[in-house]
């Protein structure tokens, strides 16, 4: 059986699943809108969590948060289920497909066979939609992929029961109730305010302050850790920033797209101006990544090169401090 579900590729998996499920239920909400209302934009430096032997740096809110905030702010209800027993998880999934209800699933990436091998890490917060089943094969709409794909029931069970941090435990979710009309205005304001609050948080590892902290640390890396480790750390920052799902520039372009849309909805001209500035900030992040890549490409460890990328990052931090101050006042 195949549900009449439209696969629309998105930059980020979670926004994409939400946007596509909303559309299936008759509500047009773009990916940037979901991201903005759900306050997806963030910067956070978590030195005590190591991913692939480097400190964790994230450019977005934690998995699940974006959808939850979005749902709360626009007034939809989501049903979430987890299952200890894989068999039960499968039955519930099949039941929903029978009822013509496509569902979102949280999965691990390591065993997702349709991903390039090089991208398959033990990352457990990926999202996709199942929109049908033919014999023993599930029809999969993975929003970050250009085309729809399939997984056998065995393959699907494996990714639904991946282990490790943020293990999905068969996590399945779908919206169950909607308001008569979506009132985006209030939700947009709430989403923006929340993002401004986080980006301007007086905490050294969060938001614009976090960016400046990392800039400071980068200057010390070559001396403290040696060339190899310093280059590895720098490469890790770029990977987090530009990995599939970010839409480029550490989600800054998606956010700029959101501000442009929000400017139309709220009829606030200033937001369109700020959208342009956010695009420039995104460009600055891209330039930073390019400079960083010159260092780890040559595997050199010239301290002035590290100081140069640190300068670039510090400039971004200062600009974002200024930017979110303006955005807060505009709303």
């Amino acid at each position, binding site marked *: 059986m195949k549900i009449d579900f439209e696969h629309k590729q*998105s930059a980020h998996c979670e926004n994409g699943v939400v946007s596509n499920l909303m559309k299936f239920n008759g509500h047009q909400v773009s990916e940037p809108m979901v991201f903005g209302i759900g306050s997806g934009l963030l910067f956070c430096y978590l030195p005590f969590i190591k991913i*692939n032997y480097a400190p964790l740096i994230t450019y977005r809110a934690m998995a699940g948060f974006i959808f939850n905030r979005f749902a709360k702010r626009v007034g939809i209800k989501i049903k979430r289920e987890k299952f200890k027993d894989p068999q039960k998880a499968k039955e519930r999934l099949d039941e929903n497909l029978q009822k013509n209800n496509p569902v979102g699933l949280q999965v691990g990436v*390591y065993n997702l066979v349709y991903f390039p091998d090089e991208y398959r890490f033990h990352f457990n917060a990926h999202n996709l939609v199942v929109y049908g089943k033919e014999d023993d094969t599930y029809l999969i709409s993975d929003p*970050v992929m250009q085309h729809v794909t399939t997984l056998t029931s065995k393959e699907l069970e494996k990714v639904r029961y991946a*282990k490790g941090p943020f*293990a999905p435990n068969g996590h399945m979710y779908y919206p169950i109730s909607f308001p008569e009309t979506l009132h985006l205005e209030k939700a947009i304001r709430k989403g923006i305010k929340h993002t401004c609050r986080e980006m301007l948080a007086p905490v050294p590892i969060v938001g614009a302050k976090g960016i400046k902290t990392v800039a400071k640390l980068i200057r010390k890396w070559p001396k403290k850790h040696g060339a190899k480790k310093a280059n590895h750390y720098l490469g890790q920052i770029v990977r987090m920033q*530009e990995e599939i799902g970010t*839409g480029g*520039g550490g989600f800054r372009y998606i956010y700029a797209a959101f501000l442009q849309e929000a400017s139309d909805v709220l009829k606030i001209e200033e937001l369109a101006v700020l959208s342009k500035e956010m695009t420039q900030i995104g460009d600055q992040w891209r330039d930073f990544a*390019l400079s960083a890549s010159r260092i780890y490409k040559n595997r050199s460890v010239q301290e002035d090169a590290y100081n140069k990328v640190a300068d670039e990052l510090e400039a971004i931090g200062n600009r974002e401090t200024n930017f979110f101050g303006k955005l807060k006042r505009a709303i």
Partner: protein
Amino acid sequence: MKKKEIPQDESFFTEEHGKELYYAVDEEGNYTTGLSSGWEVKTIALSNALEAIEERIADAKKRVHENKTSPIEYYMEVCKMELPVLASYVGMWVWRVKRHFKPAVFKKLSQKTLEKYATAFDITVEQLKNVAP
């Protein structure tokens, strides 16, 4: 970023995988999306990270043959796992898994425990016991 500036470099995303989506502005300054085949800057970062894993695999293999660690550490690296991930797959505490890295302890492991590890690594117990030189 302008739509026409979206990078089209070679990457691990080949024809069969399709392309990835970017947000960019069109000529009028309006936001739109565009596809990218890859960006060298991040492909190098990923390649370097994969190389680092290869190095750790080679190092673990060497130490297995020097009897300094058990095959469990080697296969953990092969499967791109870190200790907490492996511990979660076999349902044991991290310190216990770590203890199984000791060759002497590994030799005394029960068939049942070995099977747990073999399942986690998607190999047979025979393969688990023998790391090819």
